[in-house]
């Protein structure tokens, strides 16, 4: 074990810190709408123009090919500088669609899409979940029928985050009629402006409209847009699993860290009904201390994963452990804040910038559900790590 950073890493940190200090936007990110997407495109373009785009992409595809630890340093410096969070409308393109095309795409697909992703020109959304196939992807029903040089798509996808802003979608459809489970699926690049697509926002209990239901009515997609093989969509979708080597939750981890420190400060100035400070109250202090300790442990888990995962390893169960820790700790934190604050906590107008603490509280449910519920994460751990017998 060795907590020292190499000279090269320290230099990288210094360079990143300097550049971020000089370049982060002075305006806060808009909370929604086209202005928000434009903000993200602009920031990505700026990163691209200054050589900071694609920090985890191989150099041959225009990325920086940084080591996992350099990636962590980069994200830490972004957090320290207050740079725009990287989980934004460019996220799916940079973290999922791009890597999938790198792994399985044709030369033409790579040539067209990868530069546009890196520069922020193309935003992407995901089209995997369906109304009756949330956590259970293998039961998806949206069909793609081969017709000449096209696939003709019919069906419905849901939980399409930022679908209203996306230019392209990574779309998983059933191309072999009557096929079951993971067989007969195809992964295809869908142009979100193609005729027959309707994007309908889903308003959440937070009051925002970031996710959508997407309807496909005879949408024609050229067969040239298939990534991987027809009927081999599951393998294509899985190809990026090993792409992230323990850094998958780094953004969440850093944001949580910052929120915990904010809550400690808040507890140091919040007076309870009895007149004492919240931080001097043994109940709040004990809860907050455990949250802080868990937050440090989450950071250590990231560093341990980076050190232990070998290239190509499936981080699956470790990722599930991270998700449970991050979302569970975030929930404990936002509920503690809700308990600590009085009636001002109840003031909420759907704007996360104006009422961040109430927003975070509501978000805690999205967090433990979206991207695989906590229940599914426990199943993955029980299956893949503990190798318990399966009931299913």
């Amino acid at each position, binding site marked *: *074990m*060795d*907590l*020292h*950073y*190499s000279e090269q*890493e320290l230099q990288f*940190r210094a360079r990143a810190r300097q550049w971020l200090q000089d370049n982060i936007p002075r305006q806060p990110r808009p909370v929604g709408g086209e202005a928000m997407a434009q903000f993200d495109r602009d920031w990505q373009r700026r990163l691209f123009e200054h050589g900071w785009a694609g920090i985890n992409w191989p150099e041959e595809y225009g990325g920086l090919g940084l080591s996992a*630890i350099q990636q962590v340093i980069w994200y*830490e410096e972004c*957090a*320290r500088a207050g740079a725009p969070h990287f989980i934004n409308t460019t996220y799916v393109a940079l973290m999922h669609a791009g890597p999938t095309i790198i792994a399985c795409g044709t030369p033409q697909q790579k040539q067209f899409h990868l530069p546009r992703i890196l520069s922020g020109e193309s935003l992407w959304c995901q089209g995997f979940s369906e109304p009756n196939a949330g956590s259970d992807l293998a039961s998806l029903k949206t069909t793609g029928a081969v017709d000449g040089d096209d696939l003709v798509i019919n069906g419905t996808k849901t939980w399409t985050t930022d679908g209203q802003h996306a230019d392209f979608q990574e779309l998983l459809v059933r191309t072999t009629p009557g096929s079951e489970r993971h067989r007969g699926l195809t992964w295809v690049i869908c142009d979100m402006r193609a005729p027959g697509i309707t994007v309908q926002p889903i308003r959440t209990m937070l009051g925002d409209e970031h996710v959508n239901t997407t309807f496909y009515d005879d949408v024609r997609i050229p067969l040239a847009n298939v990534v991987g093989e027809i009927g081999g969509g599951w393998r294509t979708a899985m190809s990026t699993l090993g792409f992230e080597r323990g850094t998958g939750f780094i953004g969440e981890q*850093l944001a949580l*860290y*910052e929120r915990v*420190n904010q809550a*400690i*400060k808040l*507890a140091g100035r919040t007076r309870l009904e009895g007149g004492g400070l919240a*931080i001097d109250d*043994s109940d709040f*202090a*004990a809860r*907050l*201390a*455990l949250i*802080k*300790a*868990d937050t*440090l*442990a*989450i*950071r*250590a*888990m990231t*560093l*341990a994963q*980076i*050190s*232990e995962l070998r290239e190509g390893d499936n981080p699956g169960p*470790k990722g599930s*452990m991270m998700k*449970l*820790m991050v979302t569970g700790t975030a929930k404990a934190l936002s509920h503690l804040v809700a308990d600590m604050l009085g009636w001002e906590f109840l003031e909420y107008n759907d704007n996360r910038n104006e009422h961040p603490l109430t927003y975070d509280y509501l978000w805690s449910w999205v967090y433990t559900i979206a991207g695989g519920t906590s*229940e599914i*994460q*426990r*199943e993955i*751990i*029980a299956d893949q*790590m*503990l*190798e*318990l*017998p*399966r*009931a299913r």
Partner: protein
Amino acid sequence: MYLALDSHEQEIANAAAAFLRAEFPLARLHARRDDDARLAEFSTLGWFGLAVAEERGGSGLGVIEQMLFFLELGRVAGPFGVLPQALALQVAADEPELLRALLAGEENVALLVERDGSGARGLGGDNCRYALELTAGESTLFRLAREQCDDVPCLDRSVVMFKTPASALQTVARVTGDGLWLRAQVCVSAMLLGAAASALDMITGYAKERETFGRPIGAYQAVRHPCADMAVRVESARCQLYYAAAALAAGHDDAALQVAAARLVAQHAARANTDANIQLHGGIGVTDEFSAHLLLKRANLLWRLFGSGRDRARTLLQVDDLDGAGS
């Protein structure tokens, strides 16, 4: 930055595991409780002196290796006396003859867990002629007149608890500062994590074999999901303990913070896992002949050691820099 075991560290961990599982398996506690009499066996293989300088007869290693050793000790609820014996070496560093006798296991050390003007409560068998007291500010080694002490029954029956009058304690050596205190916290955290990890192994093994209503119990979510939570607690506590030990070894400014966090998550893991392990076993879990309760009782003892949660909360509730000592 590398937060995993290098090959040398892995070797130490493997050696500790091999020795402890062969010589002091958890199940030994059903048959015999002679841990106190067997402390010298640790001396032969040099386990006491892991962190003692080579020129003083030790192995010249550090807190990371100690942590790895005590983690394995925790898994088998190994002889408790090893902890005060190993820590006392740091206090007796300038007393060559005593140091030699301690390293050789010729003299044994009890641990004082509370003390006031009238006397103290200690943990350690008849063979202890020394006693160690640790506080956040200083650590003291006493000469102990063990024959003046009265044994009291202990929930963890592998440990002898006693009360001693003040007159039975005579100061022998003392060191100031929080160095040994933090090291002790790392060792206790490691033992707590060992108990938590052992509980996880015990229940996952059982869940694969034991059937009820025609299926292995590990196929029921009522068992699977608590097991998954146990695994998360072990993994998070392990990573944080690694970080804390490495930060202490490197002398980082935030070492006290990292150690407090390691202790808290390890303690939480030990409590929750030794509890769930019994519950998920069902009836057999509460029998004396089964080993689940041994882990619970040891964990109960460990989480009372070295200061209250209030101190740890105070350490943890200081706002720190986003990247700790990492920049």
